């Protein structure tokens, strides 16, 4: 069964408003089209578990390290404490943290896959997300499997974990570097939105960079940029199409074609036997 995200992504009822063309579309049709608007091809945000179901072979996903939860190294408090915020987000999303990683198959081909969910504290990277991504890279290295990471993060590094979250940028980048150096194939898929510390680390360090159409991608968020330069931003700024034009993506792939494209890329690039690589922990 496909689980519908309730919040703003998908309002209740039979019909929903498309954020792309602003038209009313029949929800069931959107769902059947992998959460893509039948009128304008707008790609709705998808809950991470649903996305894994859409992409991977049926029942092929084995989640790993699913018992990891954040702790509160700073005793962080804004208007609420960090543990309160985490509990509320867990309640809201049914997730323990913003990242899910594990082993799966695409058209019978085994791979390691990770995904960050932008609905859990903006998909921001704290120690759990960093650790899961690093472990996924190490596992992919050990098992000589391709690594696919689907990023969705409007938050970048997680403020509530302070400097520890900043250091996850270093951790994930270091782990990815080892994996790629050992001959591993890493494909990064950028979804709406991919910003900040996630983009400035593992999400942009892939052998192949893919984005979904119209996804918002960048370093600084559009609001921060607008406040800094004090004028309006050009149309289409920081979209996937903008990045493709500026040479930062290998391709933009429609959600419905994603599985087949990944399958083709893996066929081309993944060697059946990698150079044996050492995993150092």
């Amino acid at each position, binding site marked *: 069964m496909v689980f519908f995200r309730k919040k703003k992504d998908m309002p209740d009822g039979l019909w929903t408003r498309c954020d792309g063309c602003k038209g009313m579309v029949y929800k069931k049709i959107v769902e059947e089209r992998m959460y893509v608007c039948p009128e304008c091809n707008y790609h709705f945000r998808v809950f991470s578990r649903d996305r894994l179901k859409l992409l991977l072979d049926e029942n092929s996903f084995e989640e790993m390290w699913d018992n990891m939860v954040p702790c509160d190294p*700073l005793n962080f408090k804004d208007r609420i404490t960090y543990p309160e915020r985490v509990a509320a987000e867990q309640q809201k999303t049914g997730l323990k943290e913003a990242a899910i990683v594990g082993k799966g198959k695409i058209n019978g081909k085994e791979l390691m896959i990770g995904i960050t969910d932008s609905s859990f504290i903006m998909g921001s990277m704290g120690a759990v997300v960093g650790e899961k991504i690093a472990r996924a890279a190490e596992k992919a290295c050990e098992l000589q499997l391709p690594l696919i990471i689907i990023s969705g993060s409007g938050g970048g590094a997680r403020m509530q974990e302070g*400097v520890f979250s900043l250091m996850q940028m270093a951790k994930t980048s*270091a782990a990815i*570097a080892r994996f790629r150096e050992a001959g591993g194939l890493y494909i990064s898929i950028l979804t709406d939105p991919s910003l900040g510390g996630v983009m400035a680390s593992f999400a942009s360090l892939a052998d192949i960079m893919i984005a979904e159409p119209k996804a918002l991608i960048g370093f600084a968020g559009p609001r921060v940029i607008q406040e800094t330069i004090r004028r309006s931003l050009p149309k289409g700024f920081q979209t996937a199409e903008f990045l493709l034009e500026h040479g930062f993506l290998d391709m933009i792939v429609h959600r419905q074609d994603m599985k087949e494209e990944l399958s083709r890329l893996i066929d081309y690039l993944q060697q059946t036997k990698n150079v044996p690589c050492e995993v150092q922990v």
Partner: protein
Amino acid sequence: MTEKTVTELENSILEIEHRIEDLENASLKDNCDRSVEIKYLREKHERLQEKLCSKLTPYDIVKIARHPLRPLTADYVNMMIDDFVELHGDKRFGDDKAIICGLGRIGQERLLVIGQQKGKSTKERIACNFGMPNPEGYRKALQKMKLAEKFHLPIVTLIDTPGANPDIGAEERGQAYAIAENIYEMCRLKTPIINIVIGEGGSGGALGIGIGDKFAILEYAYYSVISPEGCAAILWKNSENAPEASESLRLTAKDLLKFGVVDEIISEPLGAAHKSPKAMANTLKSYILKYLEEIKSTPIDILIENRYNKYRNIGKYLEC
């Protein structure tokens, strides 16, 4: 009697400084001996400065780190480095003045220095974009670091940035990619790297030249995942809550040492670095020499292995 606030203390200190200066000038003119009075004022000055430093809140420290008179990368280069040869340009797009790179010596040690530069005068600040590097700045730094790797020179990076430049041009030229690539490459660069935060350590913009084997921070510098103002604007919905955000973020040198993120705090002269830049530069120089000595004896493979493990093991989480 109520305790004096930091601003009041600062004003009293400045007033005493002026009085000492006036007395000294007067003594020069009429040859009267005012040394007793001057000595008394100097002692009072010192006591007040000590008191001031002991009362600082995290947000006061952020303000000291941003102090307009605080020594910058270029000042340290002038005071610390012999025979400096600046190297410009990323060989791809341009020469970002927000990052200074160059070869130089400290004593007998040859090294590559890389540092973010904010600028002092208004004209300089604009040229340096207030120390907020563009992608070409990070690419320039990386290009020079590869040079250092090839010719076996150790690298010292001086971190002082409010953050990477958030504007249209920076995004067009791949700011996130440039920073990510620097982190990626610095993790495996086959030459020793020392990172020192001398002022502001602003998030990813700092990390873009901030990966290495030794990590030190000046006493009144800070290092944070986001600026206190930015954090307050998001979580408190009001940037005026920056003082509270500074507390919550644990961004001071002491916090970072406690967390084990930095290896060492480098003490500043009484009243912070801007009160005696020369003394600060000398201290910094001796620390850099000490680090170089420590690192040099480690074989490069072990150094890189240690560097990897340092970042690989950072961060706390629970597995339940």
